[in-house]
């Protein structure tokens, strides 16, 4: 019996989403009365620190960091059998989602994706909840199969220190050659990927043009936030596609979301309505976004944003 966590490291190092998955695996293992094991594949700098967040053991499989769901699923399937895993945990990331479904099919296992609750033991299995209908409701599922699979919503389970760093043990599993050849990986270097960001400053058509984004970047810089945008802005290439949040873009759950010059169409809200706190700045007091906001400022963003930036800079200097 064990909880097996896939601690992903696609760019060669362990990121926050992998730490969150381990933190979740640890809490699940506590609830289930077992231990949490982390598995890394390929280069995984920082993997030993997963012990801090609750991994009793950290294993590494020598294989390529180039992601191929078929190959990785085979490795994880072997690991799940070898370690007797009852629950397999993934981040709700592009690779985690691709693998979770494969593992569920491999074992005919119950699967819950983007879980928002730690498992509770019930009904001879586990109960796990998730957001459904684009954040308009939650659903709770019973997982009663021998093996169970879960992906966890980002920014929801904070990695906290519960243990000490551990030595990485290598484990030999069969890594077949895949049929996918990765040619290029282009990620924004240095910046926190949007789905992992705790603080997000997002702007929309109210900005009037890409040349005006300086004030948004300044505000994000002061806060240490990631920048995002609405769909119309990405569609006309004012901002890069990967910044687009909403139903057809990225769904995010930051602790603080600033929506600046975004009206708040239902498709946009679907991607951000699970943010903990939403601040809306819009000159139109009737903008639908105010209904979903915790704090609102009615005013011209070109006036409000620099003032907010100054107030934040002053706050940061004093705290």
């Amino acid at each position, binding site marked *: 019996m064990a909880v097996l966590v896939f601690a992903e490291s696609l760019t060669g190092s362990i990121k926050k989403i992998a730490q969150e998955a381990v933190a979740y695996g640890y809490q699940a293992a506590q609830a289930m009365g077992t231990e949490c094991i982390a598995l890394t594949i390929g280069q995984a700098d920082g993997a030993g620190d997963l012990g801090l967040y609750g991994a009793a053991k950290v294993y590494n499989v020598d294989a390529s960091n180039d992601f191929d769901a078929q190959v990785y699923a085979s490795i994880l399937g072997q690991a799940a059998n070898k370690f007797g895993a009852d629950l397999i945990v993934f981040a709700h990331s592009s690779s985690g989602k*691709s693998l979770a479904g494969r593992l569920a099919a491999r074992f005919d296992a119950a699967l819950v*994706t983007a879980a928002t609750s730690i498992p509770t033991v019930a009904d001879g299995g586990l109960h796990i909840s998730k957001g459904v209908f684009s954040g308009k409701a939650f659903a709770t599922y019973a997982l009663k199969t021998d093996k169970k699979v879960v992906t966890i919503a980002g920014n929801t389970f904070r990695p906290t220190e519960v243990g000490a760093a551990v030595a990485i043990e290598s484990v030999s599993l069969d890594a077949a050659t895949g049929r996918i050849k990765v040619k290029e990986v*282009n990620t924004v270097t240095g910046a926190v990927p949007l789905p992992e960001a705790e603080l997000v400053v997002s702007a929309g058509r109210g900005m009037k043009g890409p040349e005006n984004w300086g004030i948004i970047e300044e505000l994000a810089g002061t806060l240490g936030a990631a920048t995002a945008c609405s769909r119309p802005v990405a569609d006309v290439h004012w901002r890069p596609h990967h910044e687009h949040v909403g139903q057809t873009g990225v769904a995010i759950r930051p602790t603080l979301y600033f929506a600046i010059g975004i009206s708040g169409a239902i498709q946009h809200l679907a991607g951000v309505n699970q943010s903990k706190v939403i601040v809306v700045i819009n000159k139109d007091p009737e903008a639908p976004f105010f209904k979903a*906001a915790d704090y609102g400022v009615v005013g011209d963003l070109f006036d409000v944003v620099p003032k907010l930036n100054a107030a934040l800079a*002053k706050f940061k200097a004093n705290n």
Partner: protein
Amino acid sequence: MKLLVCVSQTPDTTAKIKFTADNSQFDKNGVQFIMNPYDEWYALVRALELKEQVGGTVTLLHVGPKENEAVIRKGLAIGADNAIRIDAEAKSSLFVAKQIAEYAKTEGFDLLFFGKETIDYNGSEVPAMVSEYLDLPFVSYGIEMSVEGTTATVQRDIEGGKEVLTVDTPFVLSCAKGMAEQRIPNMRGIMMAKRKPIKVVPAVEAAVGAELVGYAYPPEKGDVKLIDADNMDELVQLLHNEAKVI
């Protein structure tokens, strides 16, 4: 090429979501159902474009009861050649994936297209499961694809950027925004769709996986607190002391 597009139906984006009195089931009363937008706009249209480029057939597949046929007819009106309906309630992603895989395993499709997720459960589960059942490569969140002979070059979304890969057919592809542009069915398409065949296939026995226990509404959001545009210090203090997010 022999192309398969799997489509599901979802409540319309703007639908009011409500449940039966004991919160045990989704209340379908008065809900307008549509073809899942990712399946329609990106998966189906990209398959049609590929057929226009290299020839072949586009088969639409839907797992659902007879009353869902409007969604299938729409897909045929947009341009699919024929359709399969597997006659069963879509009990769970695992159940649906098994139905699709059982049908597809002897059909020799070169490429299986899916939307990246449905807009109701946002699980992104079925295409990954189908690829595992069929032991095929899975390319998820594709935003651009070119095909030369039997080799596809796909650009896909990853966290904070993009990845480019190549893969030979057959494989499973899930499609995100960018893969194609929505097509609106024209009158000729709608008329032709009425004559296109929908083959009904019985469901196979399959595991259900996770079992729904019940639904809950999110906690009510309080009213928005408005702050004067000239008082940004107050907003900062509220975010620090009240919301405790900075």
